[in-house]
């Protein structure tokens, strides 16, 4: 059960640090930490209330830092497009005006389907300023996941591009009655599809001033969808108070400091890309770099070098791809100002942590959190020793534990070191999710007494370091994204040849897991190469490349419980050649 660390180095000691970190003494910081102090480090509104965008922009502009570089976008031709804090503030104000003029009110939901571009930052902050709830969507989603999310989230406005709209949203528009306005970025006015508005024209005409809505700390701010094992994706709702933990965690776990040039490689369609790509650097008042292009080793090294990146937050899949591309490629560039490397998405293997030393003279700092937790919860810090393969130590202000669920619905704490159990967090931190949209029972099921139950299995060693063991459910973690087997199975079942489908994650050296589907065909269909390709194509068209299976296998019959439920656990065991476990409920075995 326990993943053996098998690290080439047991502990990476932190003797000499390149610069004094924000948290030089973890133990002392943990003892002293109080969320009220973290809240006091922000501005807030006179008489109470908080707004994430006010802390990210208004506060810095009012303090005279409007001229500071907020974000630099680097496009394919290496053209740099710079936005100062003031320019981004103006841009966000224009967006807030546009959204308000469309008749949207507090709590209405604005969605984006955008890659890495200035408009994404402006719309995010503009929606928050206007007191609306903002939800980013991933551009690699196919029409089906997009429709599900827009529909469950009752999106009233969608901001996207003409190409994405035409390809993925327009065919489903009729099934989205709540979606009143679609705003297209940089569309030629002549070519506007029916039922859309020209965002760029509205933006250019809008006034640059806007008074940020004085939202209450407990008012909804952000919505992110995450995948569950069964049923529809869950809409994870966060409130403006999350800003307290967004700011504190970026200072403590990413060590963001004045003057930093920060690069977060995550896509803004996922929670990391939004919280730590868009919001956290602004909250800390630093400058960030955004690469508008997709992953490419030489380009990434050039960006680290030429943009003089100091703090870099990336993902295990990317690190492993860089490792494959060879360390000599890393050594062809220089990174004298690079100070801190961090990684999130899935556990970073020990070799990758140590490879950072070889390539950059710096280790990668793995950390752990979930959409539900809203911000980093467990991390390796600038000043703490690293045990490669471990997710690290709980953030100051966060109480973590390993627990066992009891039949009565409660939990018991596992005090013994190195004993696997479910990773739990004491409820009540500022960025804790406040709801699964419209699914109160599912939300309540995540808590037992004082504890939030993460669904991740982990163990804690004698030094208090946490180690990821596995998922407690069937959710697939591929290239840092959570994928619901249910969503993939449903798409396959929509194909006329498919009788049943069971979907699991199978190990992959680059992506950690890739999606594999086992398909049972209806009578009269042959599981040949042509049908295999047809099903792959069908799934990719509906789900998008990031979610669709990479492998399909035909089986005569899928393992089922007597009640007819497909046992993914058995599929996984068979695939990996492991014992199949307790099969007493398996159909035909009892």
């Amino acid at each position, binding site marked *: 059960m326990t993943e053996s660390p098998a690290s080439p180095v047991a502990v990476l000691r932190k003797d000499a640090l390149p610069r004094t970190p924000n948290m030089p003494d973890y133990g002392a910081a943990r003892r002293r930490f109080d969320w009220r102090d973290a809240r006091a480090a922000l501005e807030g509104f006179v008489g109470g209330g908080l707004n994430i965008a006010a802390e990210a922009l208004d506060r810095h502009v009012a303090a005279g830092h409007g001229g500071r570089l907020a974000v630099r976008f680097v496009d394919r031709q290496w053209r740099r497009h710079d936005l100062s804090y003031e320019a981004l503030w103006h841009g966000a104000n224009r967006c807030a005006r546009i959204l308000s003029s469309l008749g949207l009110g507090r709590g209405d939901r604005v969605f984006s389907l955008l890659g890495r571009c200035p408009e994404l930052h402006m719309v995010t902050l503009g929606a928050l300023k206007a007191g609306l709830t903002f939800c980013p969507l991933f551009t690699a989603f196919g029409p089906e996941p997009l429709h599900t999310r827009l529909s469950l989230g009752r999106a009233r406005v969608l901001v996207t591009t003409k*190409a994405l709209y035409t390809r993925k949203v327009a065919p489903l528009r009729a099934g989205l009655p709540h979606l009143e306005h679609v705003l297209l970025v940089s569309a030629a006015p002549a070519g506007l599809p029916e039922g859309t508005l020209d965002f760029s024209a509205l933006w250019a005409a809008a006034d640059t001033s806007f008074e940020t809505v004085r939202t209450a700390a407990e008012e909804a701010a952000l919505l992110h969808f995450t995948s569950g094992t069964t049923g529809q994706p869950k809409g994870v709702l966060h409130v403006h108070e999350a800003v307290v933990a967004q700011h504190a965690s970026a200072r403590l776990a990413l060590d963001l400091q004045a003057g930093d040039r920060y690069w977060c490689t995550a896509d803004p369609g996922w929670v990391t890309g939004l919280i730590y790509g868009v919001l956290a650097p602004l909250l800390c008042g630093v400058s960030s770099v955004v690469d508008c292009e997709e992953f490419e080793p030489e380009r990434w090294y050039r960006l680290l070098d030429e943009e003089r990146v100091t703090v870099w937050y990336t993902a295990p899949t990317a690190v492993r791809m860089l490792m494959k591309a060879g360390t000599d490629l890393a050594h062809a560039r220089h990174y004298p100002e690079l100070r801190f490397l961090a990684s999130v998405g899935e556990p970073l293997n020990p070799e990758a942590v140590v490879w950072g030393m070889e390539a950059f003279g710096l280790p990668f700092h793995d950390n752990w959190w979930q959409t539900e937790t809203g911000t980093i919860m467990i991390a390796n810090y600038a000043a703490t020793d690293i045990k490669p393969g471990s997710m690290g130590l709980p953030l100051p202000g966060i109480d973590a534990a390993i627990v066992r669920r009891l039949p009565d619905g409660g939990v018991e704490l596992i005090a013994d070191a190195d004993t696997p159990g479910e990773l739990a967090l004491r409820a009540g931190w500022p960025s804790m999710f406040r709801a699964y949209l419209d699914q109160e029972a599912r939300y309540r099921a995540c808590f037992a007494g004082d504890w939030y139950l993460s669904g991740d299995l982990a163990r804690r060693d004698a030094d208090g370091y946490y180690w990821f063991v596995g998922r407690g459910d069937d959710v697939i973690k591929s290239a840092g994204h959570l994928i619901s087997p249910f969503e993939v199975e449903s798409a396959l079942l929509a194909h006329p040849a498919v009788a049943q489908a069971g979907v699991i994650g199978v190990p992959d050296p680059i992506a950690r897991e890739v999606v594999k589907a086992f398909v049972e065909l209806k009578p009269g269909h042959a599981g040949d190469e042509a049908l295999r390709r047809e099903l792959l194509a069908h799934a990719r068209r509906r789900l998008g*490349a*990031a979610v669709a299976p990479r492998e399909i296998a035909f089986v005569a019959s899928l393992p089922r419980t007597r009640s007819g439920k497909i046992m993914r656990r058995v599929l996984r065991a068979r695939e990996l050649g492991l014992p199949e476990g307790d099969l007493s409920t398996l159909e035909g075995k009892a």
Partner: protein
Amino acid sequence: MTGSLESRVLALLTEVAPDVDAALVLPDVDFREQFDFDSMDVYNFAVAIHRALGIDVPERDYRELSSLSRCVAYLERARIARTSSSST
């Protein structure tokens, strides 16, 4: 020669991304602008090229696989390099 290489490349592309209609692929436009093609697809495309054509595409050259014409030109060069090095 180029014609046959192009059709082989298209066959490999649609093996990785069977949702793509080979007849509609625009040669000079990036794959990513025409259809969904993520970094895992690029990786699998490179693996397929190696298997079918015996040409190893290192990660640093993945950008050469970003459009059909770029990809064909790159593989042509790789073939010529291989032929000339094996004949000396």
